[in-house]
C-alpha cells in the first residue's frame, strides 16, 4: 500500500461508510461499524509507516479558481492526534455496538453513520496540511456531531444540541473569518513551523491569531467557551467517550497547537501577548474545571468538567512553550494529549457500563457497585489513578514532563499543575473507594455485556501498557 492510498483511506473511509451504516441491516451494520474503525486505523498506521521510512505521504487537490488548495499533509503532531483518535476508535466502536444494543436504542443506524463521520472528520483535522482544509474538517466535525448530541431527541437533548451548535458555530464563524483574512496574506495557508503569518503586519497577525484561538478555543473548552460540553453529556455514552473526551475536544486542543505553532508562530505569540492571554485562560480553566468537577454529582458531568480542566493542562503547556521556548513543556503537552485521551475514554466507558447495568448515573448512588461490577470499577480506578498522575500509568509521565517543564520556568506555573492534580484526586478517587467500601444496596444487576466491558478493560490495559513503555526505556 502506498502512503498516499493509506492517507486517503484514513480520512475517507468513515465518510464512505456512513450511508452504508445508516441503511444496512443490523447484523452487517454492527460488524461494519467496527470494520470502518479498523480500516481507518490501518490507514493511519500505513501513513505513519511511510513517514518512518522517510516518505511522508501528502495529497493535494489542485486549487479551483479563488480557493486555497485542499491538502492532506501529516506531520508529527498530526500523526499523534490521528493515531490516538483512530486507535481508540476501535474499542469505542465495539463499545458503541454493545452499548446501543444493551440500551435497545431505536436509531442505531443513524448513530453509527454520524459517529463514523465524526471520527473521520477528526482524522481530517489531524492530517490537514493547510488552514483551509483544517477549517473544512473542523466545521464538518461540528455539524456531524450535532445529531449525536441530539440522539435521544428528548427536550433536554435538543436543548443541549442548540447550545452545542450555538457555541461551536460561533467558533466556526471566527475561524472562517480569520481564515479568509489570513488568506489575503498567504495564498497557500500551509502550516509551517514557526508560523506562516511570519511576514504579515503585526497588528493583523494579532487580529487573525485572536480570532483563530477563539474559534478553536470553543472546542478546546476554554473557560467561558466551555458551557456546551457538560450539557452535551446528555448524548449516549460512546459519544461522550470518544467524541467529547477524544475526537472533538482534542480537535480543539490540536487546533490551539496548530494556530500557536504553525499559523501565528511561537515568537509572534509571545511578542503579541497572545501567549500570555492563552496561558492565563488555561490557568483559569484548569482551576475552574477542577472546582466544578468537585461539585458535580452526576458522574458524566463530573467527568466532563474534569475534561475541561485537563484539556487546559495541554493548552497551558503549549502557551508555556510559546512564552519560554522550553521544549519539555511541549513534550509534556503532547504526552498529556495522549494520556488524557486513553484515560478519559476509559472513565467514560466505565460510567456508561455502570449506568447501562444499574441505571445509576449519580456519584452518590454508586455505593457498593464495585463489588457488583469488579472489572468496570477496577478499570475506572486504574484510569482515575492515571489521571491523578500515579505511576505506572501513562498519566504519570505526561504530568511529570509538564511539571518539570513548569519548574524549570518558575515555581508558580508548577503550582497550577500540582494543585490541579490534588483536585483531580479529590473528585475522582472517592468514586471507586465509595463503590468498593460500601455494601451493595441490592441484588447484583445484569452486567452490560462483554461488548461493553471488554473494550473498557482494554482501554485501561492500554493506559498501563503505554505507561510501561517509557519505564522500560528508562531501565538500563
Amino acid at each position: 500500500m502506498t502512503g498516499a492510498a493509506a492517507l486517503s483511506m484514513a480520512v475517507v473511509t468513515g465518510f464512505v461508510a456512513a450511508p452504508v451504516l445508516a441503511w444496512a441491516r443490523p447484523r452487517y451494520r454492527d460488524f461494519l461499524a467496527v470494520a470502518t474503525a479498523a480500516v481507518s486505523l490501518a490507514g493511519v498506521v500505513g501513513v505513519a509507516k511511510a513517514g518512518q521510512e522517510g516518505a511522508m505521504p501528502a495529497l493535494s487537490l489542485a486549487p479551483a479558481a479563488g480557493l486555497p488548495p485542499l491538502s492532506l499533509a501529516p506531520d508529527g503532531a498530526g500523526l499523534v492526534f490521528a493515531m490516538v483518535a483512530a486507535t481508540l476508535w476501535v474499542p469505542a466502536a465495539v463499545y458503541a455496538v454493545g452499548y446501543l444494543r444493551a440500551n435497545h436504542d431505536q436509531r442505531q443506524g443513524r448513530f453509527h453513520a454520524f459517529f463514523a463521520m465524526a471520527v473521520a472528520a477528526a482524522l481530517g483535522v489531524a492530517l490537514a496540511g493547510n488552514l483551509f482544509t483544517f477549517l473544512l474538517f473542523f466545521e464538518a466535525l461540528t455539524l456531524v456531531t450535532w445529531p449525536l448530541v441530539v440522539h435521544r431527541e428528548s427536550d433536554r437533548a435538543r436543548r443541549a444540541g442548540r447550545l452545542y451548535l450555538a457555541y461551536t458555530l460561533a467558533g466556526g464563524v471566527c475561524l472562517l473569518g480569520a481564515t479568509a483574512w489570513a488568506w489575503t496574506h498567504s495564498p497557500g495557508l500551509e502550516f509551517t513551523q514557526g508560523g506562516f503569518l511570519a511576514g504579515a503586519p503585526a497588528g493583523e497577525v494579532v487580529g487573525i491569531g485572536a480570532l483563530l484561538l477563539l474559534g478553536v478555543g470553543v472546542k478546546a473548552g476554554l473557560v467561558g467557551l466551555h458551557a456546551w460540553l457538560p450539557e452535551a453529556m446528555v448524548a449516549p455514552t460512546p459519544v461522550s467517550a470518544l467524541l467529547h473526551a477524544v475526537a472533538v475536544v482534542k480537535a480543539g486542543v490540536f487546533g490551539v497547537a496548530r494556530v500557536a505553532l504553525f499559523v501565528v508562530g511561537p515568537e509572534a505569540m509571545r511578542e503579541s501577548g497572545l501567549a500570555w492571554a492563552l496561558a492565563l485562560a488555561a490557568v483559569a480553566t484548569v482551576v475552574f474545571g477542577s472546582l466544578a468537577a468537585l461539585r458535580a454529582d452526576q458522574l458524566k458531568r463530573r467527568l466532563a468538567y474534569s475534561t475541561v480542566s485537563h484539556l487546559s493542562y495541554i493548552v497551558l503547556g503549549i502557551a508555556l512553550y510559546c512564552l519560554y521556548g522550553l521544549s519539555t513543556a511541549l513534550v509534556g503537552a503532547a504526552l498529556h494529549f495522549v494520556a488524557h485521551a486513553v484515560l478519559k475514554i476509559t472513565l467514560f466507558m466505565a460510567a456508561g457500563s455502570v449506568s447501562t447495568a444499574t441505571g445509576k448515573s449519580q456519584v452518590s448512588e454508586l455505593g457498593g457497585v464495585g463489588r457488583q461490577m469488579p472489572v468496570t470499577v477496577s478499570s475506572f480506578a486504574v484510569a482515575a489513578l492515571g489521571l491523578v498522575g500515579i505511576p505506572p500509568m501513562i498519566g504519570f509521565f505526561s504530568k511529570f514532563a509538564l511539571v518539570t517543564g513548569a519548574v524549570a520556568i518558575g515555581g508558580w506555573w508548577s503550582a497550577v499543575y500540582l494543585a490541579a492534580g490534588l483536585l483531580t484526586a479529590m473528585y475522582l478517587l472517592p468514586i471507586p473507594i465509595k463503590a468498593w467500601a460500601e455494601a451493595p444496596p441490592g441484588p447484583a444487576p445484569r452486567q452490560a455485556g462483554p461488548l461493553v466491558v471488554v473494550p473498557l478493560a482494554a482501554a485501561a490495559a492500554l493506559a498501563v501498557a503505554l505507561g510501561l513503555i517509557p519505564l522500560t526505556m528508562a531501565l538500563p
Partner: protein
Amino acid sequence: MTWPAVLLLPSLVGSIAVVFAHPLRLRLGLPIAAAAAGGTLVAALALAREVAAVGEVAAVLGGWGRPYGVELAAGPGAAFVAVVLAVVALAALAWAPAAAADLGDRETPFAALGLLLLFSLLGLTVAADGFTLYVFLEISSLAGYALFSVGRRRAAVAAFRYLLTGGTAGALYLLGLGHVFVATGTLNLADLAARIAGGAPSPAVVAGSALMAVGLAVKAAVFPLHGWLPDAYSYAHRAVAALAPPLMTKAAAFALWRVGAAVAPAWAEAGLGPALLALSVVGVLWGSVAAVGQRDISRMLAWSSVAQVAMVVGGLAVGTPAAVAAALLHLAAHALAKAGLFMAAGAWRLDGVHTLDDLPGAGAARPWAGAVFTVGALSLVGVPPMAGFFGKWALATSALASGAWPFAAVVVVSSLVTASYMLRAVGALWFGEAADRSPSAHGLAWALPAAALGALVLAAAAWQGPALSFLARAG
C-alpha cells in the same frame, strides 16, 4: 450572431403557444411551459458557449440602431445569469404539473405568465439599452402582479402592494432614464458609458442615474426598499413560490449593476456605490434578524431572501471583478437553494405543515422534501461543500482584498444568524416528536425537480471553479 435574441425566443413563443393551446382542452399549458424552459436552457448554454469563445455578444433588433435602438448584449456575467435563470425556471416549471394540479382552470394563465416572467427577466439581464430595459422591467412587474395574486387569501393584498411599489419603481426608473437621455442624447448603455467617461457628469445625469438606481433597487428589494417582498413571497401559491422568488430580485440586482457600471462616473459623483454597500450591510443583518422571528416557514424563507439578495448586491457594489464574480456565484447558489427550499415548504403545506411548530416528523413523512430542505438550509448557512459556502467564501475574500471589511465581516457573521433559524428548522424536521400525520401521495414528479436542484447545490465543488473562471473573462 444573435444568440441574445435567440435566448428570449423559447419563453416568448412558449407563452403565446400556451394561450393558443388552451381552447384545445388538452391541458398542454404546463408541459409547453416546461418544454419552453428547457429550450431556454439550451439557448442560454449556447449563448454562454458563444461568449466563452468570442467575448461580448450583441444583437440589434428592429433596425433603429444606436442611440435609440433595441439592442441586446451579453458578456460572461449576463450569460451566467441567464443560465441560472433557465435552470431554476426549468426545475420550477417541471415541478408545476404536480404542484399546480389544484389550480384547475388557472393552469393556463399560470403557465403563460410564468413563461412571460422568465422572458422578461432574461430580457432584463441582456438588455443593452435603457429603454428596452424599462420595457422588460414593466413586463416583469406585470407578470409578477398576476402571479403573486394566485395563492392564499391574503395573496391578492400582497400582490396589490407589489403593484403599487413596482409601478412607482418603474416610473422612477423611467423618469431617471429621461433625464439621462436628455442630457446625453443616448439610451444605449455602452454609448452612455463612452459619452460620460470624460470629465464630471452633469447634474441631470447624476440625478437621473440616481433615480434609475432607486427604481431598480425596489425591484431588487435592496434594504430599505424590500417592504413588498415578504408578503408577496409568503402568500404566493407553491408553484409560484418555486418560480418567482428565486429569480425576480436576482435579475433586477444584475440589471442594477449593469446600469451602475454604464454610468459609473455619475454613480461615483452621487456616492451610490458606497451607499449601496452600506445598505447591503444593513440589509443582510436586517433580513437575517427578521427571519429569526418568523414562525411561518415560507415567511422565514422570504426574509432570508432579503438578506441573501443584499449579499449579492453588496458584492456587486464592492465592484472589483473578483467581487462581481463572487456576487454572481452567490446569486446562483442562492437561487438554486432557495427554489429547492420553497418547493419543500410548498409540498409540506399540502400536509398542513405551515409553521416551525408543525415541522417535527415532516422529514420522515416526506424524505425528499426533508433532504432538499436540509441541503438548501446548509447552503444558506454556508456550510461546505454546499454552493453557499463557495459564494460566501468568494464574497468575503474579495471584499477583504478590496478593503471592504465591514461587508466581509457581515457576510461571515450573518452565517451564524442564518444558522440560528435554518438549523432550528432542520432540527425540528429530523429530531422532533412526529405528529400523527398521513402525507398525501407524492410521486416522482414532486421529488425529481427539487432533488435535481439539491444535487446542484450539493455538487457545487464541481461547478464553482469553472463558473468563476468563466466569469473572470468579464475583463
